[in-house]
């Protein structure tokens, strides 16, 4: 019996999150499976088809997510037309497992939350596919790249559409695989291969949480479906809820690169830039946020776990921001920023009903502007022979004007420049954080300031100041196939804020996460907004003063820097910690065990064999060949036999 089940009393159902109660698919929704199947087909054809598909592979690769996007758009519109209560539709495809009392249906759930994700994934995904046609044009393995991308889209769609935690896990690890393949796409580079491994393994640590969470669900509810778990949660104890919440948080930390499992994301930038944009910025890394929001019915009953989510989010948003400040590698700076922004989302998700909608809102806007900036960075790298060091950039705004302009949109969005999408989403999160607890609020606010600083730094070092180009670099604007997606994404970065108009997104998500709880603030919201803008401006100002056009930027990173800078450059010693605590002791343990297995266990076996052999070698010497000694043995044996018989009986 589960000890967890015994402690605590069932919670009153009133405090529960929102149960998942879908209706069966009908009409256009019955094509839901096709949304997943299209990219799956693409991946299959491209990966199994081999070289035969080289010529048209990238086209097929683009067509599939676009097809999915269009389908999803139709369904989204359909969903819009429905009442709140009817906005969860489910399609059961087949029975995945049915063992004993545990059944898992392979089913899809299309509801307001997953609808938004599907659109984001297929939408941004399609743009990035298109971009990649140009970006990977000179790579002889482009077809395979598109195969992997399609695989990723498939897995990501499974992740957000599945209606059972185990099926979510399928997508969860599926995106992990795609991420692994794509980070290691240039596998001939040792660093890429290592980074891919690291990403997969660290993610697996998070997956432990997911696995255990599903096991706990099976043990507690006999099911792991959203429907079953959400219905059963109110009946169970807070202890179970807390453990579930913490386990799911562990999973989220792995996938979303949250502290303490953040270390893989920076290394993951070894992958081609579209990958960084799609997987490691816009979609996959936000899966953790999806999971937390999706599991609102768990977290609502587990305040401790919620607090943990908030703390993880808060710490990560600061850590990510600090790391972002110290990186000269443009992609790593953006990666730090990604961590930080996801931290915001986690923070919001952890706050509960007051923050779920804003977490998703920020996730969407971030999806646009971060993908935009990553692709922009890719475009910059395209222009500079794949150089990623910002100290080798400078003054690129004239060489690549479209890239510059679109990047600027992303920049303005991320720092929360009023009017841009990020302004709205971040503003709401900080507000919600203040509403929950002023410490959260201050942390979030501080993060906003730092964000402004490092993003400005990136902007300035890349596009402004003097040219610090390498001699053989002749920057140029990217082809249209790459800039078009940039433009679209830039537009998204600008206008993404419309989702909040009239609290649309809050209401939209209500069937999933329940109504927003609005906390009263100690100051009017407008004051807080002002404070945020001021903080951002301060950040920008500091960056301007240090990296502005008037400042000279050293060609190599200065070495005599403060301890804080050194720490930030070393990713706040995250890797060092992992190495010291896990890797090196692990290697020692492994080596020790190999020794133990060889010497102790196998050694015992061999020693036993040697002992028998040795005994044999000695004992056969007793057979001396002298008949008299044989007679002596016999006589001794006879005496012993008689003595023994007598002794046994007479005693």
């Amino acid at each position: 019996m589960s000890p967890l089940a015994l402690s605590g009393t069932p919670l009153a159902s009133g405090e529960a999150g929102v149960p998942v109660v879908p209706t069966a698919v009908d009409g256009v929704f019955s094509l839901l499976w096709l949304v997943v199947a299209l990219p799956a087909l693409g991946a299959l054809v491209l990966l199994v088809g081999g070289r035969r598909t080289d010529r048209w592979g990238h086209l097929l690769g683009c067509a599939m997510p676009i097809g999915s996007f269009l389908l999803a758009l139709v369904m989204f519109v359909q969903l819009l037309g429905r009442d709140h209560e009817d906005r969860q539709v489910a399609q059961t495809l087949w029975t995945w497992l049915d063992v004993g009392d545990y059944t898992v249906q392979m089913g899809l759930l299309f509801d307001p939350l997953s609808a938004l994700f599907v659109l984001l994934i297929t939408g941004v995904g399609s743009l990035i596919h298109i971009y990649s046609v140009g970006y990977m044009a000179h790579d002889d393995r482009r077809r395979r790249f598109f195969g992997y991308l399609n695989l990723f889209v498939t897995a990501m769609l499974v992740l957000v559409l599945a209606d059972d935690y185990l099926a979510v896990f399928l997508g969860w690890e599926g995106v992990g695989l795609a991420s692994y393949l794509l980070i290691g796409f240039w596998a001939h580079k040792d660093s890429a291969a290592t980074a891919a491994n690291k990403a997969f393994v660290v993610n697996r640590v998070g997956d432990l949480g997911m696995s255990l969470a599903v096991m706990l669900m099976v043990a507690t509810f006999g099911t792991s479906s959203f429907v079953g778990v959400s219905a059963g949660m109110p009946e169970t104890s807070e202890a179970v809820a807390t453990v579930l919440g913490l386990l799911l948080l562990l999973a989220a930390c792995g996938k979303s690169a949250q502290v303490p499992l953040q270390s893989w994301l920076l290394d993951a930038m070894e992958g081609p830039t579209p990958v960084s944009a799609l997987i490691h910025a816009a979609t996959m890394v936000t899966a953790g946020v999806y999971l937390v929001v999706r599991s609102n019915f768990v977290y609502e009953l587990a305040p401790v776990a919620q607090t943990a989510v908030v703390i993880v989010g808060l710490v990560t948003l600061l850590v990510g921001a600090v790391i972002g400040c110290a990186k000269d590698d443009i992609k790593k700076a953006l990666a730090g920023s990604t961590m930080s922004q996801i931290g915001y989302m986690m923070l919001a998700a952890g706050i509960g009903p007051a923050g779920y909608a804003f977490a998703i809102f920020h996730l969407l806007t971030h999806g646009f502007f971060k993908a935009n900036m990553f692709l922009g960075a890719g475009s910059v790298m395209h222009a500079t022979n794949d150089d990623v060091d910002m100290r080798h950039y400078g003054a690129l705004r004239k060489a690549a004007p479209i890239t510059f302009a679109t990047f600027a949109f992303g920049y303005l969005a991320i720092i929360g420049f009023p009017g841009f999408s990020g302004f709205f989403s971040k503003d709401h999160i900080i507000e919600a954080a203040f509403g929950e607890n002023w410490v959260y609020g201050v942390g979030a606010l501080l993060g906003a300031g730092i964000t402004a600083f490092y993003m400005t730094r990136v902007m300035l070092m890349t596009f402004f100041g003097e040219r610090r180009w390498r001699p053989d670099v002749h920057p140029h604007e990217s082809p249209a196939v790459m800039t078009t997606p940039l433009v679209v994404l830039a537009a998204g970065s600008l206008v993404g804020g419309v989702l909040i108009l009239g609290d649309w997104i809050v209401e939209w998500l209500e069937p999933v996460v329940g109504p927003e709880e609005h906390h009263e603030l100690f100051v009017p919201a407008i004051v807080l907004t002002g404070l945020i803008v001021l903080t951002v401006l301060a950040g920008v100002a500091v960056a301007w003063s240090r990296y502005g056009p008037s400042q000279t930027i050293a060609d190599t990173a200065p070495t005599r820097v403060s301890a804080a800078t050194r720490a930030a450059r070393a990713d706040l010693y995250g890797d060092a910690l992992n190495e010291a605590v896990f890797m090196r002791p692990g290697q020692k343990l492994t080596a020790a065990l190999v020794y133990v297995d060889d010497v102790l266990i196998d050694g015992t076996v061999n020693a036993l064999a040697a002992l028998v052999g040795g005994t044999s070698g000695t004992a056969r010497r007793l057979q001396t060949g002298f008949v008299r000694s044989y007679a002596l043995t016999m006589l001794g044996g006879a005496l012993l036999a008689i003595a023994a018989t007598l002794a046994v009986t007479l005693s």
Partner: protein
Amino acid sequence: MILLAEFESPKVEYATISPLLIVVGAAILGVLVEAFVPRAWRYPVQVGVAALGLLIALADTVRVGLALDTLDAGLLARGSLAVENSMVVDGPTVFLWGTLLVMSLISVLLFAERRLEGGLTSFAGQAAALPGTDAEREASTRGIEHTEVFPLLLFAVTGMLLFPASNDLLLMFVALEVLSLPLYLLCGLARRRRLLSQEAAMKYFLLGAFSSAFFLYGVALIYGFAGSFELADIDAAVSASSGANAYLLGGIGLMAVGLLFKVGAAPFHAWTPDVYQGAPTAVTAFMAACTKIAAFGALMRVFYVAFGGASWDWRPLMWVVAILTMVVGSVIAITQTDVKRMLAYSSIAHAGFVLVGFAGVYAGTGDVVGVTSVSSVLFYLAAYGFSTIGAFAIITLVRDAGGETTALSRWAGLGREAPVLAGTFAFFLLAFAGIPLTSGFIGKWAVFAAAWAGGAWPLVVVAVVMSAVAAFFYVRVIVAMFFSDPVDIKPAVAVPSILTTGVITVTALATVALGVVPGPVLDLAQQAGAFVR
């Protein structure tokens, strides 16, 4: 006290003991043949007499077996006493006779093999001629052979038949000597490596005589205890005696020495490797199979019938001996470098396994037909007899210029040279190791089952571990034959006549049959039932 007037001529049930008489008759006929038939004719005549005699005896045994009287139903004992109670012809006797006669018949074929030595048997042409002298060479060029080996074999068989059928300790002693004396001689008659052969004979003789003395002294003590040589009387005395009797216990101990010597149990095993190695291989095969069968038969008869009531006194001794025998046989065999000698140690180990069944002392539970100590031992002996004769027969075929080459190192690569032969030998080894689908497995299973049923499960556990150790050296030979390359000169495999080929074929088939469909023979062993007392 005993008046002449009471003297009657003893009643001899000729019809019951006729198989024994047939063999004796054949043996005596053999002696006459030796005296009266011209030298050139002796070989075929002797072989014919021996084979025919054994064959007729075998047929007669079947007749006797079918005619056995059923005694009191509950005991499953069938048969009757004969010759003034000095012999007993019962189920086990008949089974043992049958087995012994079959094995002897096969051995005769091995004895008669002439092709391997260029038209001569593998026995010394003239035992009296010194090794390496002109006399010896002349004897072999003139084709002189000791055809006396056949009557000798028949005499030994006589003793073997009599040994387990004796209901009288004195007769048993006589039988012991009758079976031993010809064997001592046979051991010394090898054509090649005469010195080793003679040494084997001497060692066997001296130690055999030594052990006979122990046996005899034990008989004397038992006589002193019971006042009779008859097993039933001794049994009655044992049942009647309250408390421990030193004569009885001493007698049991000393008789055990004599019998355990014959079966080759530790610590009375020391002769086995030397004699098995030195004796002519055909004789070794005969000894390994038949002596063991006869001796175990006698051991069971004495200890179950006469000393059954005192079984708690001798069981601990037998447990220790069984364990010691298995350990000594299995462990020392591991480092042997001579195939023949290794098989000798293997035979010691097998004696240990049989002793496990013997020491279980399980007579079954009346109505349930199942494995008993007697039936399991009988089956094991039959199974082991076939495989061991087959294995030794194969040893006679691996030769070089100096005759048989038994060094394990010279067997390397035999699997490539003569796959069928090596495969058959490997099969026999697997049977020795007790791998399923061979007779050895069923035999092991049976003795273990009997022992366990008799409460001797610790013995079973030891036996199991020792089986694993024993497997190692069988595998070593297989490795040498199949997985090693010949070191210098390839081993040569002589082409035998139909005789040896037949022996190998028959024994291999028997080993398979007893492993795959052991039912009939197991049933026979079970129908042999209990000893008649």
